[in-house]
């Protein structure tokens, strides 16, 4: 009698810190294949790793060869990387290809990583936004359109192909060791910009907790869209203080001034299209996910901030 087959899972975005955490959690029990759009990473002899463009035909060969049972799609190109068009191609068209192939090869479980940025930062946002709230981001900045489109696409496949069992996760700011997104880079820096007079409430999730959330979500095939955020909140400027960052105030009124300043400076660390997120709160309600997947974040905010404070000057 043959031994029970270990599940085969395709993990995208393998060059990112989050994907590597997820891979480490699953490698003991699953056969993984790692792919990334950006670079090929070595993850050990047991895990085949590829650098591949999802929109190219060779991508399908992986599905033929490895007969995947599930896909964990973390390979989102963040809004701070690449140009708008390349990001659109990778995030939207790439995801479409991935979902088409998943359907064609009978995949039974798909987890897609999205972001809370899709809700958009506006002054009139209520707090504790739940999953059914409109996604205002696309109307606010052309640089976030790909994030919203990626979600829409995943949503269409969610309803059209229920067998794929798609779960879309919208986490708050993912931070912690190894994370290279805008927020993590700001917290890690010596000096961080802040809009004068604005200190919106923010939520942070530790990368290890997020990795737990993804693994837990993968194991329970419940379809749907879920926010992922701990039940803890802090104001942006207070978070900077706790991380030992010096705050550099950017004049905030009239509203055209900070936009002009940021557009002129073109700071990688503080892009102008994310400015609204440092002005108005986007506080999401993660309770539905916590209930459904029995998830509880284990790393408190102070632990996260202590890490950033203690690692200001890398050895």
């Amino acid at each position: 009698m043959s031994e029970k087959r270990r599940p085969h899972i395709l993990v995208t975005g393998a060059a990112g810190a989050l994907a590597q955490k997820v891979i480490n959690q699953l490698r003991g029990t699953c056969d993984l294949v790692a792919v990334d759009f950006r670079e090929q990473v070595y993850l050990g002899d047991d895990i085949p790793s590829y650098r591949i463009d999802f929109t190219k035909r060779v991508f399908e060969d992986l599905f033929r060869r490895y007969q995947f049972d599930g896909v964990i799609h973390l390979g989102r190109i963040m809004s701070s990387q690449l140009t708008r068009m390349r990001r659109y191609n990778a995030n939207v068209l790439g995801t479409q290809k991935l979902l088409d192939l998943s359907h064609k090869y009978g995949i039974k479980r798909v987890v897609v990583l999205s972001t809370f940025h899709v809700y958009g930062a506006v002054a009139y946002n209520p707090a504790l936004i739940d999953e059914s709230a409109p996604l205002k981001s696309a109307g606010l900045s052309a640089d976030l359109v790909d994030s919203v489109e990626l979600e829409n696409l995943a949503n269409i496949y969610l309803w059209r192909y229920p067998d794929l069992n798609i779960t879309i996760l919208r986490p708050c700011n993912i931070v912690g060791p190894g994370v290279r997104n805008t927020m993590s880079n700001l917290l890690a820096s010596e000096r961080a910009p802040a809009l004068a007079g604005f200190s919106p409430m923010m939520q942070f999730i530790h990368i290890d907790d997020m990795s737990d959330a993804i693994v837990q979500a993968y194991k329970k095939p419940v379809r749907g869209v879920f926010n992922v955020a701990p039940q803890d909140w802090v104001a942006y400027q207070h978070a900077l203080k706790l991380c030992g960052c010096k705050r550099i105030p950017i004049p905030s009124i009239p509203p055209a001034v900070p936009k002009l300043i940021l557009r002129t400076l073109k700071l990688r660390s503080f892009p102008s299209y994310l400015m609204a997120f440092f002005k108005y709160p986007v506080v999401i309600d993660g309770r539905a996910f916590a209930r459904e997947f029995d998830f509880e974040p284990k790393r408190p905010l102070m632990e996260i901030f202590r890490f950033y404070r203690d690692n200001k000057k890398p050895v």
Partner: protein
Amino acid sequence: MSLATFLKSRLIPEELDQHINRIRKPIGTLGYDPWGYNNEAIKYGFALTKQIYEKYFRVSADGIENIPADGPVLIIANHSGQLPIDGLLIGYALASRKKDPRIPRAMIERFFPTVPWLGNLLNEVGAVLGDPVNCAKMLANDEAVIVFPEGVRGSGKLYQDRYELKRFGNGFMHLAMKYNAPIVPVGVVGCEETIPAIANIKPLAKALGIPYAPIALPVILPAKVHLNVGAPMYFDDLEIPEERVTERVEMVKAEISRLIDKGLSERKRLF
């Protein structure tokens, strides 16, 4: 001793510190809640408001014990006097009551979050953007919420229209019914005289993006303020047509009107 600790020790007496800490609040590990309320900031706000409440407006609060000690509750009042002083005073009256104090949340105008410093400051002391979703989530969190159903129609009215109740929105009644929250009516007397306005320059308000631009003295007059808190009103959550909801809103409005008349008749002098 750092400057912050020194200031705190001077401004916030030990007794006040303990008073605030005793009030149970659903906050996170760093003292914040999702709407930006901050347990440390409120202590400064409380110490400052104490002076304004006791010395400047010499508020007399009648029936403050009518507000339930726990569970969701909507505190509904008439709005007046250009600035949201009435909300501040009702909030302080409830937060400082001897038995079962609560820190209520006030729903504020949509334009405040766009104002630097002030927006954050108001959030830190418990004020929240007046959005129905916010109100619903707070009632679900068992908070006491102060709502002025007249909105800017009430606060922006001119001195000649004082103590005239403007149209009440129906939103608060729907929320009270859905979340089984009692409604506590409050009649505020005195705030109309704090900033008497004789006209409203609408084009200026529009140009500045603010709700109204009153012509008034650039001072806040020390009118004596009377708060009359009525008995809680309970409404069932039956599916009823909108006109029946409006009837219920009118009941609350009539009760507030009665409380205002009571305050006006008890008032000896304006200041």
